[in-house]
């Protein structure tokens, strides 16, 4: 797991992981790259990460992948990432094609739903929490009246 301040150097990261895949004698290497889109009046997106829980989340996925003979990789930006730059890369390295295709889907979807990362639109230099696009994590709401 790699965290970077600001935009990711996708070329460098993907090249390095690709070499790792070849060195592991794995035939399938899939990457998912998240790029900041121009939308509304956004100048950039900005991210907060709570690293201790993200690390546990990732280690749990590493175990899951290992049980299928695969490896997962992840890189994410902290702070501001301007439009057109990349904030997120996840990857699966696997000897088997099917395992790789299935894992990347589950890994990216679970990342979206449960990785402790908060996203903000940057508009006129101000951070605005992307509330509508955010997802309550597994187990959310237990502190509410209805959660009891």
């Amino acid at each position, binding site marked *: 797991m790699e965290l970077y301040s600001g935009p990711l150097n996708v070329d460098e990261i993907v090249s390095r992981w690709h070499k790792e895949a070849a060195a592991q004698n794995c035939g399938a290497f899939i990457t998912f790259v*998240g790029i900041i889109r121009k939308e509304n009046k956004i100048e950039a997106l900005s*991210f*907060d*990460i*709570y690293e*201790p*829980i993200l690390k*546990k989340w990732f280690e749990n996925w590493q175990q899951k992948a290992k049980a299928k003979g695969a490896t997962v990789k992840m890189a*994410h930006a902290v702070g501001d990432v301007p439009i057109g730059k990349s*904030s*997120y890369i996840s990857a699966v390295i696997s000897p088997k094609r099917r395992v790789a295709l299935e894992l990347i889907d589950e890994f*990216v979807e679970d*990342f*979206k*739903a*449960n*990785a*402790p*990362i*908060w*996203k*903000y639109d940057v508009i006129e230099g101000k951070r605005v*929490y*992307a*509330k509508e*696009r*955010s*997802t*309550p*994590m*597994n*187990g*959310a*709401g*237990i*502190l*509410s*009246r*209805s*959660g*009891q």
Partner: protein
Amino acid sequence: MVKVEFLGPIAKEPIELDISSLKELAEFMQKDKDLKEWAENSAVAVNDTIVSDIEYKLKNGDRVSILPPVCGG
């Protein structure tokens, strides 16, 4: 004492509470106008492990994190 920290967009400094279960924390948050809303959609971790049992007992020195809705990527 239990330390409670609010992550991401919850604009609130950490607080120290004299509570012994998540249930007591829930009661505390429901009394606070601002926190009540976050209680609805936040997950909870104790010492960096996600907990989903409201009966979970807290002990002196525990650190509780409130995790609002996420959107990585």
